[in-house]
């Protein structure tokens, strides 16, 4: 077991760091809302131009042909520098890898290079107003008409939908079958979707609701077999859970660093209760870093992603919620009824963090996964 970069990994990290420092010189960290999205589009183009998009993808599809650990190293260095999120994060982390597993050769050649270049931005049409944690209960209907599928339904919590060209869409194709066996995955154009942004409790609108009415998707753009879409969905979810491990920890590290600075700026380093709370949270965040490295190493050693990513997700959500709550409630962010710029930052992070235990699988879903797969307890539903 080794937690240190190999000499080759260290060289790669240094190369990534040098490129990031130069490339980020022109990017402002303070961007919000629409200008942040413009930054994300520009960042995607920059990554692609200099060969940093698709680090772990095969070269024949436009990638760099390196391993998961390299990908994780680059992401770690990027997030550490507050680099913008590339606009096609869903395409690169979820859709592309899933197409590599389940797609035809024609689909791979058609879609993969355009994901990396950002020519086609992707969103993920999974959750519905009536199908959240119970994803397999989805009802968006696709009916075969000749060479096409006619799709009707609603999707919700769709990140980046307002910027996306394509959507990896789960549809119900056999309403009579058991719910996991009547689902088909389509790669749909979003041009004819009606997309409405949802304003979140912190004022951001990163999620959307999509209405899909009589939209036609050619059968050639079906991913995986008819009624075999649940397997595809499982692949997407596995990539979603494991791919984020190292990025999540850096996000937590950034918030922890801000907390340490806030304690210092308030002159309260000597407060014994704060020391103890900060120390506990520092341990949680460090565990995320170490667990992230362990998960990436296991993937790189050819092991399947397992339930350990549910553990990381639980600890991550709690750590950021605890850190942001502590800052607000200990008065480290100043007064809440006359917000300073710092106070506004903490309030924004605190409110955003409420979503961490809901998005990407709720705490309750993660605990059920651990209960069933690690503790071998009977299914609770």
């Amino acid at each position, binding site marked *: 077991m080794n*937690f240190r970069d190999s000499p080759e990994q260290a060289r790669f990290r240094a190369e990534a760091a040098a490129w990031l420092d130069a490339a980020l010189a022109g990017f402002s960290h303070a961007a919000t809302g629409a200008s942040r999205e413009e930054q994300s589009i520009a960042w995607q183009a920059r990554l692609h131009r200099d060969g940093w998009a698709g680090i772990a993808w095969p070269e024949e599809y436009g990638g760099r042909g390196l391993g998961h650990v390299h990908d994780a190293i680059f992401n770690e260095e990027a997030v550490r520098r507050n680099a913008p999120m590339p606009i096609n994060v869903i395409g690169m982390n979820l859709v592309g890898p899933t197409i590599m597993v389940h797609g035809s050769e024609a689909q791979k050649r058609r879609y993969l290079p355009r994901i990396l270049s950002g020519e086609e931005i992707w969103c993920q049409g999974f959750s519905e107003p009536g199908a959240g944690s119970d994803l397999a209960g989805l009802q968006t209907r696709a009916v075969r008409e000749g060479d096409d599928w006619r799709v009707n339904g609603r999707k919700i919590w769709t990140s980046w939908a307002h910027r996306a060209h394509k959507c990896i869409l789960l549809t119900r194709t056999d309403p009579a079958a058991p719910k996991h066996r009547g689902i088909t995955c389509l790669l749909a154009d979003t041009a004819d979707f009606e997309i409405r942004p949802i304003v979140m409790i912190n004022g951001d609108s990163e999620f959307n609701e999509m209405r899909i009415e009589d939209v036609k998707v050619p059968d050639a753009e079906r991913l995986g077999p008819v009624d075999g879409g649940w397997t595809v969905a499982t692949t997407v979810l596995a990539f979603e859970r494991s791919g984020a491990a190292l990025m999540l920890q850096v996000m937590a590290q950034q918030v922890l660093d801000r907390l340490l600075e806030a304690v210092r700026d308030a002159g309260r380093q000597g407060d014994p209760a704060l020391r103890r709370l*900060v120390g506990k949270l520092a341990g949680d965040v460090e565990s995320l870093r170490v667990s992230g490295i362990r998960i990436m190493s296991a993937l790189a050693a050819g092991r399947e992603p397992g339930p350990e990513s549910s553990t990381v997700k639980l600890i991550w959500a709690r750590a950021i919620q605890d850190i942001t709550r502590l800052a607000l409630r200990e008065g480290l962010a100043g007064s809440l009824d006359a917000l300073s710029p710092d106070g506004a930052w903490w309030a924004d992070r605190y409110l955003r963090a409420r979503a961490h235990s809901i998005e990407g699988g709720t705490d309750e879903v993660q605990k059920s996964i651990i209960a069933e797969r690690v503790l071998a307890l*009977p299914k609770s539903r």
Partner: protein
Amino acid sequence: MQAVLTPEQDMIADTLQRLAAGGPQRARAVLNGQLPSAGPTDELMAGWRLLGLPESVGGTGDMIGAALLAEALGQAIEPGPFLAHFQALHALAGAGAALDAIGEGEVATLVDGDGIGRGGAVDWLVIGAEDRWRLARPAGAVAVQSIDPCCPLARHTAGETVSEAADGGQGRARVQVLLAAEACGVGRGALAIAADHARTREQFGRPIGAYQAIAHRLAQAMADLEAAWSLVLHAAWAVDDEPAAAGLAAAMAKAAAGDAAIQAAEACIQTHGGMGITREADPHLYLKRALAIDARFGRSAALHAEVGAARLAAIAA
């Protein structure tokens, strides 16, 4: 980065889990004032005492292997004296002291600044106080009551000091890694019997583990235990490969492991319902062991504060 167990480390874990089997029965025998069956102590003394010690003193130099040993014995709540002996050797070797004085077959035990350490027959005391480790002959002991009745403690009086070494932090880090790993094992053992019970005990016509109120408590405990185990592995690695970081890493690991083990053992008692609060069932053995480990060489609450102070000092500049 290649943070997966090596085949040798996997083998160490498997072998020791087999060796430690039957630990709860032996712990129960001690509790009942009976002489427990032989257990693995002789085999551990003969074949495993050098595991993870620095190569300079003839050890294997693999602290992760040593952590796996402590975890396996913790999981079986093994009541024998080997871990106290093992911790004593690691404390001395970490401080750079020679182990030559301790003959093969002689039993050392780790003693804190108040003279508290494992009771029973010992040949050597390794006393940790004020950042120094002292190797001394025992000169008497009075039994003291521990929260864990399966591991008898005593207040030792030291005789002649044979050698002494300033710690430099590495002895303490090794002891904390071993205690943290043992705590993780105790937590795992508690969750294993809790899950067994939740699978088989039926109420309202279903196994109670099918109720999320039961399942999710155990799942949360498992998540915290896994987080602590990551910190233990990293701290063990740091002892061998990044000594400057080992002190803080070990403090973090022991703090998290103490909390996680106690949480798991409390959850185990709650899962067992009425039987969980009796001496007739096993859950209390895990809780008492977890509390006893937490109390040794850095309580969780104190270590959290130590880590917090260190992190705040590091950004003060």
